C-alpha cells in the first residue's frame, strides 16, 4: 500500500513517515502543496495523509484539485484546528477522514487501514481468500488457521494482490507498492517475493499472466 504524506513540519513529517513504514505502508513524503499536486498527478497512491496548513498551496486546495481531477483515492486530513467548522469544511471538500493534532500514531495507522479497506470494497478488517486470511492490523497471515511467517515485503505484495483479487497487477505496480522515493529498486525482487509466497502458502495461489503481471483469482465465499 502506497501512501502520499503531505506535511510541512520536518519533525512531524519524519515521524509519520517512519510510523507508517513501521505499519508496512510505503510512504512518499512531500513538504508543500505544490509538490503534493505534482506527486498526485504523476503517481498512483492508495491514500493521502494531508496536512491542511501547507506552504504554497493549502491542503484544502490540494484536496479540491485532486477531486476535480477525478481522483477518488481516500484522503485523511491532519489539522491543528479542532473547531467543528474546520473539520466539516475538510470533509465537505472531499476528505474521507480527519485527525486533530496531536494524534495517536496507532490511530492514524488504523484509520488508514480502514480507509484502504473500504476503498477496495472490503468491510471486514481481515481479508480472506480460500484458506488464506490476512490481517493488516496485526500484520499476520494464516493458512488454514496456522500462522505463516512472511516478511514485510512479502506481506505487502500479498496484501496488494488480495485487495485487487481478480485483477492483474503489473510488476511496476507491485514495485510501486514496495518502494518509496529514494529507495533503490532491486531487479527481480518481485519474482523472488512471489516465489517465496507460493512456497509458503499455495503454489496455485498466485497466477502469472505472462507479459502482464500477477493476480489472485477472486473466489466467491
Amino acid at each position, binding site marked *: 500500500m502506497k501512501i502520499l504524506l503531505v506535511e510541512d*513540519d520536518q519533525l512531524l513529517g519524519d*515521524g509519520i513517515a517512519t510510523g507508517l513504514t*513501521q505499519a508496512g505502508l510505503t510512504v512518499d513524503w512531500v*513538504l*508543500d502543496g505544490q509538490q503534493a499536486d505534482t506527486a498526485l498527478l504523476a503517481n498512483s497512491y492508495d491514500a493521502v495523509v494531508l496536512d491542511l496548513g501547507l506552504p*504554497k498551496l493549502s491542503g484544502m486546495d490540494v484536496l479540491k484539485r485532486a477531486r476535480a481531477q477525478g481522483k477518488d483515492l481516500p484522503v485523511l486530513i*491532519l489539522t491543528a484546528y479542532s473547531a467543528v467548522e474546520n473539520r466539516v469544511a475538510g470533509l465537505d471538500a472531499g476528505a474521507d477522514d480527519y485527525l486533530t493534532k496531536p494524534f*495517536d*500514531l496507532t490511530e492514524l495507522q488504523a484509520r488508514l487501514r480502514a480507509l484502504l479497506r473500504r476503498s477496495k470494497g472490503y468491510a471486514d478488517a481481515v481479508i480472506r481468500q480460500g484458506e488464506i486470511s490476512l490481517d493488516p492490523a496485526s500484520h499476520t497471515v494464516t493458512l488454514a488457521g496456522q500462522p505463516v511467517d512472511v516478511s514485510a515485503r512479502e506481506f505487502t505484495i500479498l496484501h496488494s494482490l488480495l485487495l485487487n483479487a481478480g485483477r492483474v497487477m503489473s510488476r511496476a505496480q507491485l514495485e510501486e507498492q514496495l518502494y518509496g522515493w529514494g529507495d533503490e529498486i532491486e531487479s527481480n525482487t518481485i519474482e523472488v517475493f512471489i516465489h517465496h509466497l507460493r512456497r509458503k502458502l499455495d503454489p496455485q495461489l498466485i497466477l502469472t499472466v505472462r507479459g502482464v503481471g500477477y493476480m489472485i483469482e477472486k473466489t466467491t465465499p
Partner: protein
Amino acid sequence: MRTSLRWRLFSLLAMSVLLAWIATAFFTYLDTRREISTMLDERLMHTAERILQQLEADDTDHHPAGPLSDYTHTALQVWRNGTLLMQSSTAPTVPLGTQQAGLQNMLLQGVHYRTYSLWDAREQLNVRVAERYDLRDELAESVARHLLHPLYFAVPGLGVLIWLAVSAGLTPLSRFANEVKQRQPDKLDPLDLSDTPREVLPLQNALNSLFKRLQDSLEYERRFTADAAHELRTPLAAIKTQAQVACAATDAEQRQQALGKVILGADRAAHLIDQLLVLAQLDPEHCLIGPQQVQLATLVRDSIAQHAPAAIRKAVDLGFTAEDDGLIHGDSTLLAILVRNLIDNAIRYTPGNGQVDIQLQRHNNRVVLQIADSGPGIAAADLERITSRFYRVLGSGEDGSGLGLSIVQRIAKLHDAQLTFANSTSATGLVVRVSFTAATPALPE
C-alpha cells in the same frame, strides 16, 4: 468619607432657600418696624393734638387730670410756662422731654421713650406725650413672628420637596450608573444612553474609550491564546509521533533516532513557548517603563558573539561595521531580544556560504541598525505579512517559531523606532532596517 452628590445638592439648595427666606424675613421685620414706627409716631402726634384741642375747649383750670386718665399706654404731661399742670398716671416723675416741639427719643429713669412735644403759643400750653419704646419693639417682633410662622411648616415641607427634586434630577445619573453596573465583563460595546445629561457625556465618552481599549486588549488576548494553542499542536504532534515511532521501533538505531527527534521536538516546543511568553509581555497596551541609555553597538556585538557558532556551522560570513556607538533611550533587555531575533533570522534564512552584514549608522538624529542577508529575500506580496504572528517563510525548511519578527515589530514600536523590510536591490536577500531616535543630538556637519 465619600461625598454624596445628592446630599451636596440637597444641603446647598436647602441652605440657599433658607438663607433667602431668613434675609427676606429680616428685611420684612425692619420694614415693618419702620412702618409701625411711623404709624405710632402719627398716633402720638395725633394724641397730643387731641389733648391740646380738649384743653383749649375746656376750662383748663378745672380739670386737673381728667382727660388724661383714659390713656394707659401713653404717658402725658401738660406744662404751662415751665410748670407741670397735669400728668397721666403712667407718666414718669421726670419731665417728658423738653418744651421744644417735635419727636425725640429719650432715656428717662432707665426706660427708653419716644416723646412728642406740642407747643401752643396762644394758650402757653405745652403738651408732651411719650410711649415706651419697648412696646414698639414688641409689636414689631410680634408682626415679624407672624411673618415667620409659615416658615416652621414650610421648611420641612420644602426640604422634602428639594430632596425629591434632587433625586429626580439625579435619575439619569443613576440610570447611567445602573447601566454600567449591570454590564457583563464581556459586554464592552459603547454606552449610548439617549438621556445621558450633557454633564455626564465626558464620563460616558471616557468609559466608551476605555471599553474600546479593553475590547481590543481582550480580542488580542483571545486571538493570541487561540493562535498559541494551535501553534503548539504541531510540535506536540511531532513529539508524540516520534515517541510512538520509538516505541514501535524494532531496531535500536531507529529507536535512538526517533528518541533524538523527540528531544529536538521538545526543544523546539520550549523555544516556541519562550517566544510566546516574550510576545505576551509585549502587549500592545504595554508601554516602556523607565527607558535608559543603551549602547546599541555593544548589544549587537554581544549578540553576534552568541550567534557566531551557528554562523560558523553554516559557513555564513557574519560581519559588523559600526559607524556610531548607537546611543539610544530604551530597555536594554528588550533591545537585546530585538537584535537577537533579527540576527537569528538572518543566519537562519541565509544558505550555507552566505553572508550576513550588520551595520550601525548615524543619520542626523537617527541611529539606524541594518541587517542584510544573502538569503532568498521575501516575495513582494509577503513583505506586508512578514511581521504577523506565526508567519513563516514557506518552504524554507526552517522550523522557527514564526514569532520572531512579531516580537521585533512590537519592541520597535515600543521604542518608537521605524522597522522596514526590503529586498536587497544589489543582490538577493532581505534588508531589515530599524531606525531609532538617537539619544545624543546630531553632530554639526
